[in-house]
């Protein structure tokens, strides 16, 4: 896999070299200034084709990145924690009729970005976007900051977890020379490899043993699209065929020894945590009228087939869309949209669980198939140059099939949404947008889905002078829900309707950008977010007779009005300073503090623990960055960028750590 990734990177850089070679061959043409006639009075001249004139412009750099870190890697979540050489290339060249561009940055073998393109007239368009990202993952610890015992086994307590992600998006479009007929090919391949923490339950709910162990992954995914489109007078038509496949590699099934379960499943070695190989294919047909004019229509029809090659579960999805735009007058616009989605799940009737000594056949309930239709109608009224009013209504109808076995899911859910939005310019330098939306749900499917939701958003942009910009945004969202649905853990699948839930989301952003002097600019911002929920929760319990299984009809434990809160504040301040023409400085600091609580109560009484203490949140994250670049000459530039990231897990001290990165680059412009 490593070889494949390196091969991929090498391929791109070989391509870059070829492109540079192509550019250098055409330099002669670029040196010729166009000899074109100038204006003479107001007498128009005969149109002539302009000569090719695009100099090769760009730069390349070579440098080194030092990385130092301590404790956990949470502060360095997306940083490959080892020092490495860095290099990059930016290039734009247009030796007509050819055009090239390259924009690349290589920070390490696992952290890179390249966007390279080639075009020949408008006949060939090729683009490759290659991205590599390293993601340090948390090693979840079962011990918090107290000494409570925990039923668990960590087989690889000291391991560090990460994934290396590589995405390669290739696009090729070919055009018929004298007619807008295109053939196109798009391929996105994703590779993920690394070591993740596999957590699972070995044992039963009555005698649990929580296991944590390392799992190496080597996943490949490839999604290809092939199609053609054409302009056909009053209509334009496109057909595309999609095919995708996910290969989970060799370590996709784990086997472990399970004890006899309370439901009678014999003790044996069983497979678990299977990462299934999946594949899909789709056909899509698109048709639209001219984009211009007072009436524009667009229609899409698509069929998607998906298959799981491990469990042989299949699904077929039909999708349809229709857009209609009607602008009878610049003052008024009417927009209609319809979306249809039909999903048919084809789930095997039984699943075979093959242990080392036992083979069990277990019935499986059908997956949820459904039909969904969404209609929306929006209108725009531009009464005055400084005022636009928009109103929209959307109706969504979801019809679920075969949900009898699911117990809790309603057969259908309807959602009505009404939105009013206003864009105003009360003064020449002030823009205000206000939006209010109300949603009403009929038979909401999940407890987190409200009966009604109201959302208000206000934004203001104020630019009194070209060197000062102020942006303010406030969002308030409130939700209400009555008659929550809970399902008992018991096989009878009885559903209880009780309790209520209220939610409130506040979000505020203020930012200011200003030029303090001709050489110094400053940007500062404050972002505040708070999410409050108050909800009645239920916990299963042994009934009075001490019988295992159902707690009802006696009823579960109820915890009324449990408050849950997430809150964060993020402050940032940055300066750009140009002390001289050849020196650029940057300094920035970001400080984010987050906290959260859930106010569970002791519904049993006399509990020797505090549920809220298991999942509280109190963290702060600080990032300082400093950079300076100096032009040594017209062609050469040297730069150094350094950053310090500090993560402080104030609640449990489990994720504390810091990271320092310093990049020193020597850049040459050409």
């Amino acid at each position, binding site marked *: 896999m490593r070889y494949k990734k390196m091969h991929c990177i090498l391929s791109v850089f070989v391509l870059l070299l070829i492109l540079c070679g192509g550019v250098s061959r055409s330099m002669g043409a670029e040196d010729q200034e166009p000899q074109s006639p*100038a*204006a003479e009075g107001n007498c*128009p001249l005969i149109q*002539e*084709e*302009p000569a090719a*004139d695009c100099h090769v412009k760009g730069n390349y750099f070579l440098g080194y990145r030092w990385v130092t870190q301590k404790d956990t890697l949470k502060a360095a979540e*997306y940083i490959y924690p080892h020092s490495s050489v860095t290099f990059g290339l930016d290039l734009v060249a*247009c030796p007509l009729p050819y055009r090239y561009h390259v924009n690349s940055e290589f920070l390490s073998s696992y952290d890179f970005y390249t966007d390279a393109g080639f075009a020949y*007239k408008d006949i060939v368009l090729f683009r490759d976007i290659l991205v590599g*990202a390293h993601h340090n993952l948390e090693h979840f610890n079962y011990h*918090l900051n107290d000494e409570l015992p925990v039923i*668990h086994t960590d087989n690889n307590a000291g391991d560090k977890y990460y994934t290396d992600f590589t995405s390669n998006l290739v696009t090729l479009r070919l055009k018929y020379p004298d007619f807008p*007929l295109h053939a196109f090919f798009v391929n996105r391949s994703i590779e993920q490899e690394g070591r993740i923490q596999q957590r*699972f*339950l070995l044992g039963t709910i009555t005698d*649990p043993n929580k296991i944590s162990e390392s799992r190496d992954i080597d996943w490949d995914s490839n999604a290809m699209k092939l199609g053609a489109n*054409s302009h056909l007078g*009053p209509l*334009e038509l*496109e057909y595309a*065929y999609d095919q995708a496949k996910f290969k989970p590699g060799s370590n996709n099934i784990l086997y472990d020894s399970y004890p006899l379960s309370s*439901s009678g499943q014999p003790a044996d070695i*069983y497979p678990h945590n299977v*990462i299934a190989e*999946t594949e899909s*294919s789709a*056909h899509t047909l698109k048709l639209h009228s001219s984009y*211009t*004019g*007072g009436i524009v229509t*667009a229609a899409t029809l698509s069929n998607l*087939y998906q298959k799981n090659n491990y469990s042989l579960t299949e699904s077929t999805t039909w999708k349809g869309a229709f857009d209609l*735009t009607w*602008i009878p007058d*610049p003052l008024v*616009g009417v927009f209609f*949209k319809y979306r249809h989605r039909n999903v048919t799940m084809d789930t095997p009737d039984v699943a075979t669980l093959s242990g080392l000594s036992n083979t069990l056949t277990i019935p499986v309930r059908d997956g949820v198939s459904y039909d969904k239709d969404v209609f929306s109608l929006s209108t*725009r009224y531009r009464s005055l140059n400084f005022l636009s009013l928009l109103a929209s209504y959307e109706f969504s109808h979801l019809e679920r099939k075969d949900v009898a076995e699911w117990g809790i899911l309603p057969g259908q859910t309807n959602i009505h949404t009404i939105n009013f939005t206003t864009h105003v310019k009360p003064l020449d330098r002030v823009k205000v947008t206000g939006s209010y939306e109300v949603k009403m749900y009929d038979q909401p499917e999940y*407890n987190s889905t409200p009966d009604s939701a109201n959302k208000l958003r206000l934004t203001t942009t104020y630019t009194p002078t070209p060197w000062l910009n102020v942006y303010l945004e406030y*969002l308030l969202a409130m939700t209400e829900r009555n008659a929550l649905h*809970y*399902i008992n853990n018991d096989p009878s699948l009885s559903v209880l309707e009780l309790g209520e*839930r209220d939610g409130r989301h506040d979000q505020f952003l203020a930012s200011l950008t200003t030029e303090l002097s001709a050489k110094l600019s400053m940007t500062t911002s404050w972002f505040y977010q708070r*999410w409050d929920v108050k909800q009645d*929760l*239920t*916990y*299963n319990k042994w009934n009075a007779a*001490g019988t295992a299984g159902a707690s009802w009809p006696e009823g*579960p434990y109820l915890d009324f009005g449990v408050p*849950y809160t*997430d809150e964060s504040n*993020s402050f940032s301040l940055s300066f750009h300073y140009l002390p001289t023409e050849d020196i650029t400085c940057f300094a920035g600091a970001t400080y*984010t503090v987050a906290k959260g609580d859930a106010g569970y109560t002791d519904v049993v009484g006399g*509990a*020797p623990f505090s549920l809220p203490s*298991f*999942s509280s*949140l109190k963290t702060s994250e600080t990032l300082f960055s400093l950079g300076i670049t100096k032009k040594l000459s017209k062609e050469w530039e040297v730069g150094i960028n350094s950053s310090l990231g500090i993560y402080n897990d104030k609640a449990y001290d489990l994720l504390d750590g810091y990271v320092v990165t310093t990049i020193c680059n020597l850049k040459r412009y050409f």
Partner: protein
Amino acid sequence: MSVRGHYRVNRSCLVMMVLFAFINGCTSLKESRPILPIRAYEKMIVGNLDADYVGTQNCLAACHAHDMLKRFFDASTMGAQLKKESGMPLVDCESCHGPGSLAIKGLTKERVEKDAQQGIKTKCDFKMLIDLKNLPGTAQSLICLKCHTANATFNLHNWNAGVHAINEVSCFNCHNIHAGPDLKVTPRASGKLCVTCHQSAQAQFSLPSHHPLKEGRVFCVDCHNPHGGFAESSLLQDTVKETCVQCHPDKRGPFLYEHGDVGENCTTCHNAHGSVNNRLLNAREPFLCLQCHEGHRLNQAAGGSITAERARALYTRCTDCHSRIHGSDVPSTSGGGRFIR
């Protein structure tokens, strides 16, 4: 439908492509006319009716000969479209700015050269051109669409009824026609461009759990299509799940045991832009799960509360045990789909 069946349909479509090539000879198929012309906007973008067209050379070669914008324009796809034989709409300066004879009235080659020698950039009377900057957003976009509608530009398929068009965000707001050879917004640039309007989205990426947008490894256009699409929020793919599984293919399914139809919308549990909670979760476990599911027993059969050890095991992270919460293909120990195996 089987994969083989799809291949059969695919062959049919290849035949269709051949048909396209055949009908290419039909001249009427090259025409492009709106279903219903909108005359008010046409008047806004037609330009000064007293002026004549003077050609690109008189605009670019005279006053803008050494401007970077000329180089980029020449290098663009539109530069290639200057050939009349292409059968495509002629594109030059005046295609967008309107006829320019009045704007350059009185300007001579000698004056331009003399000014250039003195370091002065000769300016034309740009007020005689179309006032592009102050046009309504829909009219601005119409200037671009007049050509792109006849060019099978299918990434604009859902543009007209999309959220940007409805709110009169125009092509000009994102595409600077003079800024680069392809006029396209690069993925990297999208991370800076989109947040000029969507500033709160940028702020969400500063929360402790976030996708690596500010690190330059994920881009707005990985998930969103600013030209509009099938799904809400201008998602790149047809649904939230289809968008997410582009990069998280292990969650694609379908699975033997699906999490109801929750899995169709990843945002039920995750906030893709950022969260204070790990794994971009909307709420911390166990509250996230307890919102919909009854919690495990808190009392013992013999009476009294469960032990602290057991409570810690059951009420810290539900996904410690329910490790296949996005969908499972193996029955659980109870014989159902509890997502634990």
